[in-house]
């Protein structure tokens, strides 16, 4: 039993921390979010130069040979700094699919560009009717010669406005919600038949609605086995859930520290408001919610390679914990900051919004309570 980080892992954390301190303070982040593009390609390129995009890939693929713990470290620091850039979408999701199930040719073709920061990816899975059920797909891919023709609609595809390539889930056989018959395809965003409408999200990011109309892809666009992609999708989205958990604990830590600090300095009735016991207990509850979330984040990170049922319980358990804790910490951080917590100017509201959206991403507390219960 050992919860300490290796020297290399500590070095990675320090690297990310000092880079973000220098280049990604809250004002810079706000400017990036409000810019026309809504993200910074320059920052992304620097992430690549620092090796962050390569961290979790095997060395023979040009990566640094890290794993889930390295991703956790990066994501926790990203969470502390509200990083917008599509690390989860590109590295954890697309990178995860390619590394886990890509053919040698696919890995060779795509991973170097991804690691190098040249190609940005995202995962287009959600559909309006499907809610959080990853198998509930109306989008279809029909065999067409050697390749496939994809038709469908994907909603709230985070990071899609910046992406060059999409990984699209589509049904190749079976009924709308069958576990069998789900397949994954690599789709060029500028391929004929792909159209996107972009918009901002409440947590300072960008997303697209993606329409796929007779989009033709070759056989080399298929990731994994045709019709058998659901377990793969579950596995890789569980990794994304672990990443979001790490991001969430980074955000919660910032909110808790800021709230304690504010309550020590903000005076009403002649004393710092932190002297009021009712607020002290509130902050203690926030602290405990955070600590419990750290524990669940470590647990899911260490269990990502266990068998499906263990991994699924760990991921859904973590998602429930960070959903509930993020809600409590976020709401109370705003409440204890008073009117200031409501403003766009202070960072508190931005962390609150991001934590709220993390609960929605890949299924909220209710969804993961059910998933956990069914796996247990």
């Amino acid at each position: 039993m050992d919860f300490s980080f290796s020297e290399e892992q500590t070095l990675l954390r320090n690297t990310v921390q000092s880079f973000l301190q220098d280049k990604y303070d809250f004002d810079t982040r706000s400017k990036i979010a409000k810019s026309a593009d809504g993200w910074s390609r320059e920052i992304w390129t620097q992430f690549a130069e620092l090796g962050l995009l390569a961290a979790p890939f095997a060395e023979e693929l040009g990566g640094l040979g890290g794993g889930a713990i390295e991703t956790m470290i990066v994501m926790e620091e990203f969470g502390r700094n509200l990083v917008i850039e599509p690390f989860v979408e590109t590295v954890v999701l697309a990178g995860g699919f390619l590394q886990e199930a890509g053919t040698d040719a696919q890995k060779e073709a795509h991973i170097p560009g991804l690691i190098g920061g040249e190609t940005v990816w995202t995962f287009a899975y959600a559909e309006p009717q499907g809610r959080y059920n990853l198998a509930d797909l109306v989008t279809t891919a029909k065999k067409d010669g050697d390749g496939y023709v994809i038709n469908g609609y994907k909603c709230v595809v985070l990071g899609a406005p910046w992406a060059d390539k999409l990984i699209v889930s589509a049904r190749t056989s079976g009924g709308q919600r069958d576990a069998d018959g789900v397949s994954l395809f690599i789709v060029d965003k500028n391929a004929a038949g792909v159209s996107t409408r972009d918009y901002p999200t409440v947590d300072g990011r960008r997303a697209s609605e993606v329409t796929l109309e007779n989009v033709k892809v070759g056989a080399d666009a298929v990731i994994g086995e045709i019709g058998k992609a659901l377990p793969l999708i579950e596995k890789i989205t569980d990794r994304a859930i672990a990443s979001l958990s790490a991001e969430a604990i980074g955000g919660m830590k910032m909110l808790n520290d800021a709230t304690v600090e504010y309550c020590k300095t903000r005076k009403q009735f002649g004393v710092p408001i932190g002297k009021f016991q009712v607020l002290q207990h509130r902050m203690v509850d926030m602290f405990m919610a955070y600590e419990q979330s750290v524990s669940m984040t470590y647990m899911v990170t260490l269990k990502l390679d266990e068998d499906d049922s263990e991994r699924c319980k760990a991921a859904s358990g973590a998602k429930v914990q960070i959903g509930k804790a993020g809600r409590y910490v976020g709401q109370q951080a705003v409440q204890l900051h008073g009117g200031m917590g409501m403003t766009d100017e202070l960072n508190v509201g931005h962390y609150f919004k991001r934590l709220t959206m993390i609960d929605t991403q890949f299924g909220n507390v209710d969804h993961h309570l059910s998933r956990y219960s069914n796996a247990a």
Partner: protein
Amino acid sequence: MDMSFSPEDIAFREEVRTFIADNYPRDVINGRSRGDMSRDDILAWHKILAKKGWVAPHWPTEIGGTDWTISQRYIWNEECARAETTPLLPFGLSMVGPVIYTYGNEEQKKRFLPGIYNGTEWWCQGYSEPGAGSDLASLKTKAVREGDHYIVNGQKTWTTLAQFADWIFCLCRTDPDAKIQEGISFLLIDMKSPGIEVRPIITMDGAHEVNEVYLDNVKVPVENRIGEENKGWTYAKFLLGNERSGIAGVARSKKAIERLRKIAASELVDGKPLISDDEFVRKISEVEIDLSALEVTELRTLAAESRGQGPGPESSILKVKGTEIQQRITELTMEAVGHYAFVYAPHGEAEGGNSFVPGPEYAKGASQNYFNMRKTSIYGGSNEIQHNIIAKMVLGL
């Protein structure tokens, strides 16, 4: 004990429902929320009601009140909520209006009440300051007497819709040496006075609803002081009592739950409507039960009020429970819309109001509403302060 409606009440409901249907300027409002509307649009409904004589039911009848029974006031609120009319602004009608007709002199009543009633003068509230929130009495804005004027210096904050206001009612310190609650005066200040500057505060949902108001050597005629000098805290507290009793928002919350149920009937989970999901429907039921209790609690408070027992400290219950319920409903609504909770809906034309907002119409702004409603447990005396009031004034702790 009787909670049923009389035949007169039922006839009254029919009358007001018809009036709203025939007169509410739906084409002008066009489903927009207040944050996205112009000054004239916000006031449109107010002016129609003023003409009808229904804009200030709670005022004394000789100055425009309607003398409605509790049941009728309840029905009126419910019908307005049902028709989703723009809520009337409370700053004139429910805040400074009652202060003026209770504590103001004849000239002040004549000068100010018609403008409030008819909606020709817009008021805002100069209470909170950067250093005086929950501890309002520690306010620092100074008014120094010079002949027949006060010279006012200071800063007010969280001033709702000050960008449209003609007048601000302002708590100012007139005796810096007195105990903190005893040196305050209640001044009415013309927003066009030289030395007033309004700066917007954008909230986390992207809305421009609140402002900072800076007062730099603002000249205010002494005749614009309400009541006695240094007695402003008495009037301020009277106003806050009134603010609290209107804050429960029961009828609007009922409507919001009805809307939530409709959304949950449209959203799907595994091919079935979300409303048939046990977990989710129980959450709706839970908040609805809370609301039923609050509804009766409010009616009990109103009944006590009609017997002449003014809104007492127990009205803090209405504020705490009412805001918790409003927050919970917006939270469940955000939850109900699923992925589309991510979407940012721009406010008004200044922010590109016509840009692309995906998803069903009912999902628009769902999470922004949730974020915005976090303010309700902070404003009007934070919910922590309301707990203190009940602990001290009701429980005697």
